[in-house]
């Protein structure tokens, strides 16, 4: 493996494969290195794949990609112990081309996607761990792998090695993540007949539903539970910041059982046969934790760069765009033969000018605000439920009295000003 490549991409997930695909399409000599037995074998996602960013790489990919169902309805459940307040949007324009987003099973999807990069001319090598970047005179010139004689060289190394980017850390691009900068998420894939899924979620074949759950799903901790419908299985999962999990001494699999057995959720998952149990970290540090993105001969993409919008559960789409932008940057640099940090820096500016940088900036304080102010999930979600219950339970109490009672509960211990302040703070964090 002593030959030299234009680009070495570390990691065949959404970021790495997008980069390899685009670079190979542009005629660059690309090596894509994957540590798993096959692409996808180490990768986990709740399951929502957005159409737009992949379409920019592979037009009309949905005709051939192994997608599960196009999502036609997004539901949001605010759970108390035995009740929930819900809101949702269902739109049949999402059931038609070009669709909005899809549920996918990543082991299948990533494998297919990497094969597409290979079709473009990228060389994919599986079962290979990159143990370090080879640095000469301060410039990254290649990678060291765990294969015998495993040094490989390239003009540019793209780090797409995921949330546990040991390589970016080795290069000093960021310090170790803190427990409040990552979310620990666990999920199960439950097998259910597609007919049962259609009936339970009120959809037809080839229509999917996403459900995001707040409040009691995480015992009021900062995080969410979710259900996503596949063709003949559903993904049910839950995650909170690792710091919350540690502080509350929660076992993630116990939290998952809590979700599966919650009286509002149980009817949807009942009878499902567990096919797989998966755990993964999601980088949720946001804008303020984005590492150094570019160095001499090296670019950082995807989860390794903390490109996740946790509020909108977007990540794989940002990964794909960042991989594509990285490839375009390298192709441009190839014209001048200059792969220095200065030459590759247009990657950084393009990222910050794109929806990635802008959305991360918009929500830069959100995680911090909700972590520091647990009242939103812990107190307001139950209060919402109690308010609805009070208002809609017909017990002879006049509605004016009910309203007064609700307002008294909402303002108890914090006053009207405290309530207004909390609402303002939440709005400010996401505005």
């Amino acid at each position: 493996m002593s030959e030299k490549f234009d680009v070495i991409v570390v990691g065949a997930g959404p970021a790495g494969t997008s980069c390899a695909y685009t670079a190979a399409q542009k005629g660059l000599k690309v090596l894509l290195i994957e540590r798993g037995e096959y692409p996808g074998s180490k990768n986990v996602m709740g399951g929502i794949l957005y159409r737009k960013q992949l379409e920019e790489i592979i037009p009309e990919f949905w005709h051939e990609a192994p997608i599960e169902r196009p999502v036609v309805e997004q539901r949001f459940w605010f759970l108390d112990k035995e009740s929930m307040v819900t809101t949702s949007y269902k739109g049949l324009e999402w059931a038609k081309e070009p669709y909005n987003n899809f549920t996918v099973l990543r082991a299948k999807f990533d494998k297919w996607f990497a094969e597409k990069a290979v079709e473009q001319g990228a060389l994919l090598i599986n079962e290979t761990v990159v143990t370090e970047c080879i640095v000469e005179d301060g410039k990254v010139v290649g990678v060291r792998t765990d294969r015998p004689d495993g040094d490989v060289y390239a003009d540019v190394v793209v780090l797409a090695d995921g949330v546990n980017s040991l390589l970016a850390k080795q290069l000093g691009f960021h310090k170790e993540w803190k427990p409040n900068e990552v979310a620990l998420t666990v999920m199960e894939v439950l097998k259910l007949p597609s007919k049962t899924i259609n009936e339970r979620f009120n959809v037809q074949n080839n229509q999917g539903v996403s459900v995001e759950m707040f409040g009691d799903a995480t015992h009021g901790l900062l995080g969410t539970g979710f259900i996503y419908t596949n063709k003949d299985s559903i993904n049910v999962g839950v995650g909170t910041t690792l710091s919350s999990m540690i502080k509350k001494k929660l076992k993630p699999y116990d939290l998952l059982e809590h979700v599966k057995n919650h009286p509002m959720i149980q009817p949807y998952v009942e009878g499902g046969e567990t096919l797989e149990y998966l755990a993964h970290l999601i980088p949720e540090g946001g804008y303020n934790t984005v590492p150094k993105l570019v160095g001499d001969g090296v670019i950082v993409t995807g989860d390794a760069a903390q490109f996740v919008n946790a509020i909108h559960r977007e990540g794989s789409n940002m990964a794909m765009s960042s991989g594509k932008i990285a490839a375009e940057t390298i192709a441009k640099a190839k014209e001048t033969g200059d792969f220095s940090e200065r030459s590759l820096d247009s990657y950084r500016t393009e990222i910050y000018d794109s929806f990635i940088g802008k959305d991360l900036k918009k929500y830069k304080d959100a995680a911090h605000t909700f972590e520091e102010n647990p009242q939103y999930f812990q107190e307001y979600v139950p209060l919402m439920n109690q308010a609805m219950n009070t208002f809609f339970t017909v017990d002879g109490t006049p509605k004016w009295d009910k309203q007064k009672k609700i307002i008294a509960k909402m303002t108890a211990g914090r006053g009207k000003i405290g309530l207004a302040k909390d609402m303002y703070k939440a709005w400010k964090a996401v505005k």
Partner: protein
Amino acid sequence: MAKTLEDKQYLLRFNCDQKSHLEVLDHQVCATQCPDKDCTIFCPAEVYKWEGDRMFVGYEGCHECGSCRIGCPHQNIKWEYPKGGHGIVFRLA
């Protein structure tokens, strides 16, 4: 439906290496400076088990999520990726 962690872990495929990719750097730190032993609680695969006087590391069932490396309050866990092709093999999601 899998209820216990054992049920869940049983469904997974692992291609185990002979050598652990996880290493407790100083077992004394676990024994004397870490009364809470958080890793035994938050690890999603219960890889870490306190055996009264020593931390047992069942690396064979590891999901390679990285939580222990980040969550250990004493940075006492050396965390590497398993050798290429080894470790957990997810088949679905």
